[in-house]
């Protein structure tokens, strides 16, 4: 079979949205991949590993192969019989699929939540308090002379971030590494920190104090302590001067800020710090979102329901009250009585108390690969991997939409998420009419 080279392929791993991959492939298999980071390349190299190839239904305790129609029917029945179904995941699929998910949630009167709930949910809550001064990644590449990574380690999590967008990138107004300063704030000396001009080691859970001290310092007010959160006040004041004196500063923060003590208070402080800096210079912030379409999940959910995640549609209209309508809380309270999981693995990632209840209720999983969640499911429907075996829209961390195009065919009989969800919707409608 003849080989083909696809260029400008969009990577569907992290939310950096690198779109310069070059993939050599046949109709069904990837031969080699170029330009990607190590994670991206291994993703392409392993597309056939741990795949689920047939729809499965749990019968007498075991998952057994079945037909697509039977799996869809069971999935629809599980959702239809539920009083409070949860529809969860969405950050590793297309916006088109997420849109179907919301339609289904409205149809069955459920709760729809995405993985934001366990990563940058606090960022959104902070944003709802203060707003956000942000930009697309290209603006950082062209203009930023000060880069700050706070509570994130892009060298490992977003491997091409530094070369495509920040310190090692070449922009219109900043050409080389020397044109930019890099500050890293973290609780340990990470590999990203090793590249920094200034590394600030903050005490675990001390971020809020440090951010507040920086806000104080940039206003020119005196800080009376000797050190804050383990950081000498001299260092804080030096850093504040760097921020005030730069021409274009960019702050990137990760889960080290959103998931440590303070949570949305941390992000609120970080967003407020950047806002305050705009009174004296130009400064922006871009949260380091994880999965390739977690931003898209927020975008679609927002334009269709008004709210970015944790949306309860049980009353026939959207309600948003994280802590009440967020997936982990609703499961941990024991209220959720069925779950549809699309492109995610909550059994691995959720806290123990939530997982304990989750594995007790019927789960329908739509997922390309074997995961602990699919193992614990009632129904498993295999799906095509987005951006490799299926096309769809995704959003980068900075809200730039891209079309991730299909490169190879999925394994025989395996369908894209959109088709699977559409089939469930149609089945639920039919069952509803029969009732």
């Amino acid at each position, binding site marked *: 079979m003849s080989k083909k080279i696809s*260029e*400008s392929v*969009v990577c569907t791993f992290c939310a950096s*949205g690198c*779109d*310069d991959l070059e993939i050599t492939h046949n109709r069904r298999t990837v031969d080699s991949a170029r330009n990607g980071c190590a994670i991206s390349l291994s993703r392409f190299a392993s597309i056939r590993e741990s795949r689920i190839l047939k729809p499965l239904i749990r019968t007498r305790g075991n998952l057994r192969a079945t037909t697509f129609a039977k799996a869809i029917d069971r999935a629809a029945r599980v959702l239809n019989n539920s009083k409070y179904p949860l529809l969860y995941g969405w950050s590793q699929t297309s*916006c088109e699929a997420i*849109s179907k998910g919301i*339609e289904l949630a*409205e149809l069955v009167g459920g709760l729809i939540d995405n993985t934001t709930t366990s990563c940058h949910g606090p960022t*959104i809550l902070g*944003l*709802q*308090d*203060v*707003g*956000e*001064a*942000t*930009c*697309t*990644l*290209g*603006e950082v*590449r*062209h*203009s930023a002379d000060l880069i700050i990574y706070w509570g994130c380690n892009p060298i490992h999590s977003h491997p091409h971030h530094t070369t*495509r*967008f920040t310190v090692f990138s070449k922009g*219109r107004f900043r050409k080389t590494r020397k044109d930019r300063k890099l500050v890293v704030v973290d609780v340990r000396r990470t590999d990203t920190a090793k590249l920094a001009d200034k590394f600030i080691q903050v005490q675990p859970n001390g971020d809020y104090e440090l951010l507040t001290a920086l806000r104080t310092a940039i206003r020119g007010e005196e800080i009376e302590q000797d050190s804050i959160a383990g950081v000498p006040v001299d260092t804080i004041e030096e850093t504040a001067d760097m921020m005030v004196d730069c*021409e*274009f500063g960019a702050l990137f923060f990760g889960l080290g800020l959103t998931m440590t003590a303070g949570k949305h208070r941390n992000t609120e402080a970080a967003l407020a710090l950047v806002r305050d800096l*705009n*009174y004296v210079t*130009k400064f*922006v912030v871009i949260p380091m979102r994880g999965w390739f379409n977690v931003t898209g999940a*927020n*975008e*679609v959910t*927002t*334009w*269709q*329901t*008004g*709210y*970015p995640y944790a949306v309860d*549609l049980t*009353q*026939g*209209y*959207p*309600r*948003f009250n994280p802590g009440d309508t967020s997936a982990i809380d609703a499961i941990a309270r024991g209220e959720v009585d069925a779950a549809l999981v699309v492109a995610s693995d909550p059994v691995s990632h959720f806290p123990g108390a939530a997982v304990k209840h989750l594995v007790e209720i019927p789960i329908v999983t739509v997922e390309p690969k074997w995961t602990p969640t699919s193992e614990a499911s009632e129904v498993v429907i295999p799906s095509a991997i987005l951006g490799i075996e299926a096309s769809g*829209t995704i*959003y980068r961390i900075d*809200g*730039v*939409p*891209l*079309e991730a195009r299909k490169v190879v065919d999925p394994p025989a009989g395996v369908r894209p998420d959109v088709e699977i969800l559409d089939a469930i919707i149609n089945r639920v409608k039919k069952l509803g009419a029969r009732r």
Partner: protein
Amino acid sequence: MAEFLIRNGYVFDPLNGIEGEKLDISVRDGWIVEKVSRTARVLDASGKVVMPGGVDIHSHIAGSKANCARMMRPEDHSKDPEPKTRYARSGVGHTIPSVFTTGYRYARMGYTTVFEPATPPLKTRHTHEELNDIPIIDKGCFPLFGNNWFVMEYVRQGRIEELAAYVAWMLEATKGYAIKIVNPGGIEAWRWGGNVRGLDDRVPNFDVTPREIVRALCQVNSLLNLPHAVHIHPNCLAEPGNYQTTIDTMESVRDIPIRGHPIMHVTHVQFTGRKGWSWPDVRSGAPEIADYVNTHDHVTIDPGQLIFTNVTWMTADGPAMFALFKLTKTKWFNADVESETGAGVVAATYKKSNYVNAIQWGIALELALLVKNPWKIFLTTDHPNGGPFTAYPRVISWLVSKDARKKLLDKINKTAKRRLDLPGIDREYTLYEIATITRAATAKSLGLGFKGHLGVGADADIAIYDIDPPEVDPAKEYKAVRKAFARAAFTIKDGRIVVKNGEVVRAVRGRTFWTRPQVPEETMKTVIKQLESKFDDYYTVRFANYPIEEQYLSASRVIATSEGA
């Protein structure tokens, strides 16, 4: 598709010169036709007003900044839920409604076509995703060009033909409809936290002036024969004294040849029509601007009427948004887009007691009442900047009734009332003029020959309102008029009844309009070569991944540029 006959309504169809005559309208297969057969379904419109479906030329309903605003403002939605019905999806209002609700609420007011007036090209895929999801209404969007690096470079080098080819490429790549300019050059200055101060200030690093950008893009508009004019939000938005910049901007393109339509549409002039030197001293610049519009034919305007309520400000004008945020100290969103443009969003409230707000309210109404020719001014609130689009019926009541205005004038800030000309203006719009500023003139300005009228061949987009012209004097019964425009008795989209008694009874899918201008093949080849060589330097997205394919639009309709002439 079924035929039907709308019988005995009082028809207001300004493009065909029909003013309140009792006429029957025949509809077949989504179009207005001469005659229908005897089996046609009859819709009795006696005692009602029949107009073409409303056409909104400027309303921020979709895209990146609208969604940032939705995300930032849960408090805006929670008090205004929209439950699902048999026919309609659920959603939320209020100042920035979710997409389904946006379509339904427009349709409920008898509107069938709406244009999103500012889309950052790089993020226009997002805009189309939302437009695809907005039910019932037809729509389109205007990509932003006024701070684009390629544009500024072509302008500096004086290469107008290549600029025209670039604009043509961009309109096709983004499936955009018209050239939009927001604060030309000022957003590029905002890269470094700055702004430009007026038409002749130089843009940092690009060695061009806003005047040069505006003139060049107007020349391009003329060269490409685009259906709509250049749609501009001038420099110095919201600043006291900016009415002069607005007049200068209009004057700067007076000599550019007009091919059958105005070369420039200046939008939400309420925000750029201010006299005075400082906030306590702000006055209305409406009389001067109206005077200019009355004496020149190369421009049209819309007021961006202010409503005393909670609003969300959103614009591509990043520096203006930050300046206003410093006054409100509420929440501020900023989103600059590489090599192209910016965006800002701020939560705000307009109060009757506030002097500046009251002056703004007055400027917009003075503009609407002082511009004599209703074909030169269109109804907008610059949704959601001046107020939500759902306030249009209220604005209509102020336009048709001096009593309605007086009632509110008595409640606004006393100093503002004293300083406005508004109390002395007696003009009251007729329903014919209302039909002009809300559908006929906007459709004409957009170059949509098959919209905004009820002649044979037009789209069967029809609004029927519960107003009985011989019985109702709008000037006296403005409350009834307001109620009628808020809840159409019927809205018909492409020949199907979508709204009945103000409620959605069917959700059809609307189209997205865009333009594909023609340029000489050689010039286009040259420009594409230039783009390819610079693209990776300017963008973090590959050239190949930038354009949006036509299949991406759920229902695409190309408007040929010749149709616009």
